[in-house]
């Protein structure tokens, strides 16, 4: 990260915001290209493989200028997207944007819980490993990291269902809440939490691996630096040196990686939601593939890509807030 000198946080955030405009346009153009190069009639990509009323088909042709030259179509596409018009899903009988945003909310709940859990566990494991390099704890952390990078998340989900839902009966196998019993108040909340445990574990594993590895390597680097030596020389307890001085510096790369891995979490979430029938945006993607509901698929790609840009922006701001070298 370059030295930003005396820039204020507001100006920094504004600068990053301006920088993301070409990316937003790029994302829209990629979507446009997919519509244009889809095999067969491009109107299918905008409507889906669903018997739509002929008047509607004609209106979409008109609205997106499908008989016009390419540059004209691109402009119309950008205008339509900018107005929030991502088309209508006949399979779900809802406007695509409403549908995707509703599902995205449920995916975000799962993701936030997962990231919180994974970061906590990963940092703890990383600290344990870094305190005694080449110990049993270190070997265990390495093992978890290797497994996390190699085990497919959807398979882990299936195994968790088999062991903890089918064999042990400890947790429900899928869904977001119980269907047969209606709970209220605290019981409803607990019911939801119970449904979230297994998908959260499945989705967490890879991020535990990433944060463990990262915490370990950045802590090892920080703990060998001069200011840690100075802190120890001042007689500050080893525990405080580790948690207050060491971890604060190690937090920066961790924040960056978590923020920037949002795009990967979305992919993992799509797979986990499919295993657990979690009614989020990933499950919607799975269903849209089978109903050939192209506008929904493209809408998901667009909304998710834009969320990645937003999360990256927030990550940069969080980084600036945490970085002790920045003054406002």
């Amino acid at each position, binding site marked *: 990260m370059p030295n930003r000198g005396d820039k204020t946080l507001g100006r920094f955030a504004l600068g990053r915001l301006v920088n993301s405009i*070409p*990316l937003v346009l*790029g*994302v829209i153009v*990629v979507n446009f290209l*997919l519509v244009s190069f*889809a*095999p067969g009639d491009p109107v299918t*990509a905008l409507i889906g493989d669903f018997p739509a009323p002929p008047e509607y088909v004609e209106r979409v042709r008109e609205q997106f200028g499908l008989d016009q030259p390419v540059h004209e179509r691109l402009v119309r596409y950008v205008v339509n997207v900018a107005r929030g018009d991502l088309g209508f899903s006949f399979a779900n009988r809802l406007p695509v944007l409403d549908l995707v945003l509703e599902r995205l909310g449920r995916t975000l709940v799962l993701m936030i819980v997962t990231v919180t859990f994974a970061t906590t566990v990963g940092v703890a494991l990383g600290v344990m490993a870094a305190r005694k390099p080449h110990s049993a704890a270190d070997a265990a952390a390495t093992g978890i990291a*290797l*497994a996390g*990078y*190699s*085990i*497919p998340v*959807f*398979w882990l989900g*299936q*195994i968790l*269902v*088999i062991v903890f839902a*089918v064999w042990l009966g400890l947790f429900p*196998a899928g869904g977001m809440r119980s269907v047969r019993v209606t709970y209220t108040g605290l019981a409803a909340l607990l019911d939801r939490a119970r449904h979230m445990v297994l998908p959260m574990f499945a989705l967490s594993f890879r991020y535990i691996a990433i944060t463990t590895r990262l915490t370990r390597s950045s802590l090892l680097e920080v703990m060998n630096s001069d200011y840690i030596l100075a802190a120890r020389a001042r007689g500050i307890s080893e525990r405080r040196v580790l948690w207050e001085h060491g971890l604060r510096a190690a937090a920066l790369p961790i924040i960056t990686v978590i923020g*920037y891995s949002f*795009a*990967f979490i*979305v*992919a993992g979430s*799509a*797979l986990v939601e*499919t*295993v657990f029938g979690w009614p989020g945006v990933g499950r919607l*993607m*799975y269903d849209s*593939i*089978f109903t*050939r509901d*192209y506008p929904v*698929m*493209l809408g*998901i*790609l667009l909304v*998710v*890509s834009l969320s*990645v*840009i937003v999360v*990256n922006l927030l990550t940069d701001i969080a980084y600036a807030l945490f970085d002790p070298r920045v003054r406002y």
Partner: protein
Amino acid sequence: MNGPVRDFWLQFRRNRLGMVGLALVLLLAAVALLAPVLAPVDPFRTSRQALLPPMSPGFLLGSDHLGRDVLSGVIWGSRVSLLVGLAAAATATFIGIVVGAVSGFFGGWVDELVMRVSELFQIIPRFVLALIVVSFFGSGLSNLILVIGILSWPQTARIVRSQFLRHRALPYVDSARVLGMKPLRIMFAEILPNVLAPVIVVASLDIAQAILMEASLGFFGLGDPNLRSWGGMLNTAQGFVQRAWWMSVFPGIGISLAVLGFNLLGDGINEATDPRLREG
């Protein structure tokens, strides 16, 4: 074995995890090559003995809902994973080298454009994009390889670019210029051999990622319908998790070991070629 390869091997051999990775990769290759000999039956052959548990006579790892042999499916599935992994990573490496070399060697607006495009590729979730492209254009084997390969080039390109940026200012490149070599020859005959080590490391990790991606697409029902693949088997298994755990367990072990193998191999090569990572 000549000098550098021998040196590399002597370093690599000392890395225990790297050797485990190599062993896993060789095992995968052996199973894939010998599939017709190793598999007890045709992996597509159905029978009336549906959903048999493992250790049943004739079905060592059990059978699926159509009475197909799980063991034969797992053995033949290794071919799909290995082929897609190797071919997609080769595609990605090729594109990455060309794009990265041009970008790093010439700089300027070409470099700017390439960097913006690779940034875009980082933002758009690859898996979602792959799902859309494959469901538009079909999920045949060559489509899968192309899509995964084309979506995976940016990392190689960034590494090649940064290496080229560094090398183009070094004396040996200057002397090649003074000798009147054409830019293409300088790029691919002079610089490229010097920057191959990190490219090979990324390629190995790319194979692992491509295997995971193919399995994920297969799990979403977008695998090659004419082949038994591990992802496709897990797609079928999803409907039977309550009744037939063996349909899930064995193909998943296959994927995990294959991905682990290439990950360990990549890490091992990295440690053997990067002097900073060598221990003692």
